[in-house]
């Protein structure tokens, strides 16, 4: 895209340290347990961890969910009980209740990290005792190490060593990394097939016993911007990470598909031809929302690391003005293509000092604030219009067919404001 060159003055990056108003990595369990249908997530932590997941899940779910917390008690801390024996007992009870479980994640938390509970060894030990029926893996979702979506990164990174080796002579294969809604996966798979790109596999797979193979011929497209550890682990398995913008919006999706096509030696013109109908359709659907959103000023608080690609979509496809783009962490390499597409001089804020950021937000009086659940209602009460960012993780937003749905998420709060008279 030639226009990009003129826009690509380096963005101004503001680094802040103060109160971080973000979830920890445990929160990812809420969508990961829906995605991997025979996996169970056992947090080894405190009552706070259990309460967090229950509260972040928003509503309590009817069925017994595939996640739980092994709550560390004072007996464990005082050494009156052997923590490892206790963990074995809890896992035994759990697997007895849930014979349908094939993959168990022991998920580390702040307290388990601080007391240096070795969940890696525990997972090995438990894997041996429950093999071959149940595989036990571990990762950390602790808030002292991970922010919100980094929990998914840690989970997928823990899966990577388990992936079977791709047969050597099999030729190039594409691996799409990052949890996507099933409907999005299916759409993208059809596009790859039409492009002659394949075989294509997705990580995480829907079932734990159907893990995708990986090897030196594997080309990896990241579907999410927060997968630093997963990408590193895949590279260690010999896979090659393709650099591209993320598949948000028409432009992002096209550029993302182009990266795959190029890696598989397919001509760029083919991408244009194959995606033409979907691009046209998406552009038509987006037009409705552009009318409403163009020129509106948006302020994004840090939450999921999706903020830079979202900002690019809002600025370039909906003509919104970016006041500030917060992100808990900026992975410059994975986001290089995204940063290059942001309007010149866009203010990016990495990390957070929530009070200072709120001050800036109030001064700027944006038309729309994208923020977490703790901030949304108080800002609404101050007269600002907000969009809760957590919805961006629970809603299918990637790909052409979802581009307008994504725009609609930002338009809805504004439309609502105009409708309410009383």
């Amino acid at each position, binding site marked *: 895209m030639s226009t990009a060159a003129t826009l690509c003055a380096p963005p101004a990056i503001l680094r802040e340290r103060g109160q971080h108003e973000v979830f920890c990595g445990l929160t990812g369990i809420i969508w990961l347990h829906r995605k991997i249908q025979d996996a169970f997530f056992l947090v080894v932590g405190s009552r706070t961890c259990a309460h967090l997941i229950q509260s972040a899940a928003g509503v309590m779910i009817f069925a017994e969910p595939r996640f739980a917390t092994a709550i560390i008690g004072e007996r464990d801390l005082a050494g009156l009980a052997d923590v490892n024996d206790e963990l074995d007992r809890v896992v035994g009870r759990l697997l007895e209740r849930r014979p349908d479980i094939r993959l168990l994640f022991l998920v580390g938390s702040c*307290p388990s990290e601080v007391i240096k509970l070795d969940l890696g060894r525990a997972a090995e030990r438990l894997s041996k005792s429950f093999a071959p029926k149940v595989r036990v893996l571990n990762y950390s979702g602790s808030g002292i190490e991970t922010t919100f979506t980094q929990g998914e990164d840690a989970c997928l990174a823990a899966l990577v060593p388990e992936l079977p080796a791709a047969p050597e002579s099999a030729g190039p294969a594409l691996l799409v990394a990052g949890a996507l809604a099933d409907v999005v996966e299916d759409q993208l798979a059809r596009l790859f097939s039409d492009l002659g790109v394949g075989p294509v596999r997705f990580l995480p797979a829907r079932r734990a016993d159907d893990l995708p193979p990986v090897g030196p011929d594997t080309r990896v497209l990241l579907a999410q911007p927060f997968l630093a550890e997963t990408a590193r682990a895949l590279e260690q398995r010999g896979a090659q990470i393709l650099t591209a913008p993320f598949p948000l919006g028409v432009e992002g999706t096209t550029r993302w598909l182009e990266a795959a096509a190029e890696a598989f030696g397919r001509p760029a013109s083919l991408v244009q031809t194959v995606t033409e109908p979907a691009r046209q359709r998406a552009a038509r659907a987006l037009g409705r929302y552009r009318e409403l959103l163009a020129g509106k000023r948006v302020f994004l608080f840090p939450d999921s690391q999706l903020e830079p690609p979202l900002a690019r979509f809002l600025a370039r496809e909906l003509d919104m003005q970016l006041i500030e783009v917060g992100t808990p962490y900026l992975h410059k390499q994975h986001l290089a293509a995204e940063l290059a597409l942001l309007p010149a001089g866009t203010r990016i804020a990495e990390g957070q000092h929530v009070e200072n950021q709120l001050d800036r937000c109030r001064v700027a009086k944006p038309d729309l604030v994208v923020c977490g*659940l*703790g901030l949304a209602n108080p800002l609404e009460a101050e007269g600002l219009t907000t969009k809760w960012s957590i919805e961006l993780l629970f809603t299918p937003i990637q790909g052409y067919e979802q581009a307008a749905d994504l725009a609609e998420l930002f338009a809805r709060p504004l439309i609502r404001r105009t409708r309410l008279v009383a």
Partner: protein
Amino acid sequence: MELTVWTYEGPPHVGAMRIATAMEGVHYVLHAPQGDTYADLLFTMIERRAKRPPVTYTTFQARDLGSDTAELFQTAAREAYERFRPAAMLVGASCTAELIQDDPGGLAKALNLPIPVVPLELPAYQRKENWGAAETFYQMVRALAGPAVPPPGSQRPARPAGQAARCNVLGPTALGFRHRDDVAEVKRLLDRLGVQINVLAPWQATPADLARLGEADFNIVLYPEIAQQAASWLQRSFGQPMVTTVPIGVGATTDFIREVAALAGVAPEPALAGPELRLPWYSRSVDSTYLTGKRVFIFGDATHAVAAARIAAEELGFAVVGLGTYSREFAREVRAAAKRLELEALITDDYLEVEAKIAELQPELVLGTQMERHVAKRLGIPCALISAPMHVQDFPARYSPQMGFEGANVIFDAWVHPLMMGLEEHLLGMFREDFEFHDGAAPSHLGSHAALPEAPVPSPQPARDAAVAALAWAQDAELELKKIPFFVRGKARRNTERFASERGVQTITVETLYDAKAHFGR
């Protein structure tokens, strides 16, 4: 280590947040990692508060653990003071910070802030939310009212003649089950009695208000889980008697009014029930006959569970078949209430245990929390909510107290409507089996081109234990059972099977059916 699917209570620092958020002019500096900021959404999303809770989190990270988390805490406390200028500050640690032992109390003291700073020790691996709220409130009350405590042995001066009695109303917090509306209802009762409120706390109280607590003649403990500890200290320190009857239900509200009136030296009559109290008449009206002996299972915090048991048994004519609480601190009170009903109380915070108990008892109505609502939904049993943990639905837009006489009216509706809904579902189920009303039948006003009825839909049967499962029903007995009205059929089946298995009967005949009927009576 304890396996938990859902938890009834949050950690104790969430209890402290409920106190800080309820009050004005208080700020809580919490040494905690970033994930703990989720607790803000309890207040902003579930309770829909328009302001963030007055809490600053230090949000330390792994990389800070090697350097200086203590300094991080001091910076956060200093900045919080400068930004929010509170009249008092609470400082403490969440579960993770408790492990790194930074001593927030000592660190805050070293800052020499010109306001009272109350350090909180809330053992997160031992205690839970309500305990944390009670302890926080107690520490606040002690710290702020402490300076006014008279020397030991001093006599409480008599109230001057002609001056209205004054009380403190203690217990309502942020994120409490109907606390907002209970406060309004209790205020109304006190107003009718001519009793003045000296301080209402922690709800909308300032630190200066807490300093005045000793001026009241007596205390009213609305929620013992939150305020009993503080009220006991006030009793010891200021000689203030306390009212601990919680005015939930007609009987308890009447007792409450009489107790308050006695302490205030006023006549109770102006506050006693008038025509606006409808529960007793609704309960006596003939259409409520079907409520008689309805088997109910009750579970919640101690205050609400005990109150619910009394209302269910004495004011609605239900049969309480199970009573329990997750409030271990008040297990004694719940055990006593259960004993009066000849039951053994279920004291547990294990949701799976509660679920198993409900499945075993097969009640006709569950009065519980959001957890029991889901259990009941799975088991197809009507349910009404009586207690926290809180859900966005527990903050209705309308006035909806549990306390006082209006609270009793609200409770009648809230508990009886799910039963009526249940009855309607049963009716639909019955008609589905009827030859005229099967699924394939066209609406009668569209003419009679109905299809033939399909096989009747089997009605769901309750889980039965092994001994009962081994029983066989003779065909004629099964047919006879079907002639029994649907709404008592399940009970007839259960009773007959129990009767048969207790007597070693292998095959249930028509005779067994009627023997059992005669044995149990209706």
